[in-house]
């Protein structure tokens, strides 16, 4: 019987000299400095021997992810950045945003694993406790999590979403503002625990990863760091030869990859 797809990776997984390459796509256009801040969310000691991760930026897009307008643009540009990942020799793709922008379309186009920071973080939280709260820098990101809760059927597991009132720096992240922001996030998380009955805290954004260590030490509950969770899941999937179901995410009959590349413009004065 001919079996259309069984999750086999393009290369022989038994070769011990082979390196697994993971592409992590940031949803906001950024320079090398910005990519370094993103890369810092994966401690070197958690990257296994034989695995590499490259953080790459979208070529254009919105800066704040603050609206449904921005959400569609993030889908478009993250998708454009991810379409050729297999051809480029990558073995997995991580969507470095809790919005999971373009995750389903990339899963449709690609056979290599595509892991979203949001979906992996929320389901990882579900293995740690009964309900999680999402703590965010500002409530203009809530639309992403609301859509995810509906999409993944996780409203019953979501205790709450709360935010401090801080307009994020999606490129520079929280550097230089730790003393101000970390205690605010801690207080917010404690409100989730004490008032909303959260027993796990999820950081709302991979841009908040710098707060993970501080919050993990201060809070009486596990704290989920979404970008790192996605990377760990990607490593597990690669090791086990797992990828998303092509039955759930069938490939397009008539892909128009070139149109995505040509129609979507580069960021001006990049």
């Amino acid at each position, binding site marked *: *019987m001919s*079996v*259309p*797809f*069984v*999750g086999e990776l393009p290369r022989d997984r038994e070769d011990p000299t082979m390196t697994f390459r993971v592409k992590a796509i940031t949803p906001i256009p950024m320079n090398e400095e910005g990519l370094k801040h993103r890369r810092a969310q994966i401690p070197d000691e*958690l990257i*296994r021997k034989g695995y590499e991760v490259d953080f790459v930026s979208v070529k254009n897009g919105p800066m704040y992810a603050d609206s449904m307008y921005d959400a569609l643009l993030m889908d478009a540009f993250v998708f454009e950045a991810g379409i050729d990942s297999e051809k480029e020799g990558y073995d997995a793709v991580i969507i470095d945003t809790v919005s999971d922008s373009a995750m389903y379309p990339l899963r449709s186009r690609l056979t290599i694993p595509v*892991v979203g920071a949001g*979906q*992996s973080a929320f*389901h*990882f939280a*579900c*293995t*740690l*406790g*009964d*309900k999680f709260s999402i703590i965010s820098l500002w409530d203009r990101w809530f639309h992403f999590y609301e859509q995810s809760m509906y999409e*993944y*059927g*996780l409203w*019953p*597991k979501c205790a709450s979403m709360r935010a401090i009132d801080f307009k994020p720096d999606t490129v520079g992240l929280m550097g230089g503002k730790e003393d101000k922001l970390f205690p605010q996030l801690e207080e917010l998380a404690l409100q989730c*625990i004490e008032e909303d009955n*959260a*027993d*796990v805290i999820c950081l709302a954004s991979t841009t908040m990863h710098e707060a993970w260590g501080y919050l*993990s030490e201060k809070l*009486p*509950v*596990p704290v989920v*760091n979404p970008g*790192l969770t996605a990377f*760990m*899941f990607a490593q*597990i999937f690669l*090791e*086990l*030869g*797992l*990828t*998303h*179901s*092509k*039955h*759930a*995410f069938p490939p397009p009959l008539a892909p128009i990859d070139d149109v995505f590349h040509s129609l979507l413009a580069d960021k001006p004065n990049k």
Partner: protein
Amino acid sequence: MTYLVKVITPIPMDAAALARRRSQLPAKHILPGFEVEYVPALMGGKFGDGYYDGLASEVGIFGAGLKAAEEGCDALGIDTISDSFKAFNALRSRLSIPVVAPGITSYNIACNLGHKFSIITMWDEWFHYYKKSMTQYGLSHRLASMRSIKTRPDLEELLEGKEEVIFKKLEIEAWKAIVDDGADVIVLGSTTMHQSYDYLREHLPVPVINPGLIMWKMIEMYLQLGVTQSKQFYQTPIDPIDDKIFT
């Protein structure tokens, strides 16, 4: 540093049977710095075929888990996709080392790979475990179906000597789950079915989750990240009576 993990089987068993359970974790899937030991439950139901057997295993796993933690380990695994639900909760409540189970892990990982999963199992008598898991873990809406090959399992011999017949029957039920029930991921309904994993992966067009193996990877992940179950939810007892429970 080396992490020692003990995995508790749902029934008492001898060394040969423990070795068959242990074989679900090939050396290539154990990260450097991790060691695993399979230990038997203090008691358990021979077939796991109803609530009676379920409670017997819960008590047996709980006792073996307490003993394993007291003797020293860095994490516990529970080698049954039922998660031996109350034992899982009780151990998570009593202990602060990670306690990880294959059911909650497999179903949440399946949700990362597709929209709906089916559970393929040996017999209908295990369906009550999956129903409970779906309810307790809030995942009923992600379950396409449960199907069985209506074959009484052997929790010690596993599938040895019966591979040709059993594997094909499991494959057929999995295809029905995919084509008729809308499953896009298959979850093996028991860690005792691990010997069928490679065969099913090769013969099915969807991802197959091997519960004991994926639980192991989750244990590694917890230990690497330094996380454990939420003590806010799994609250520590005020007045434990560990040394008074068992003879």
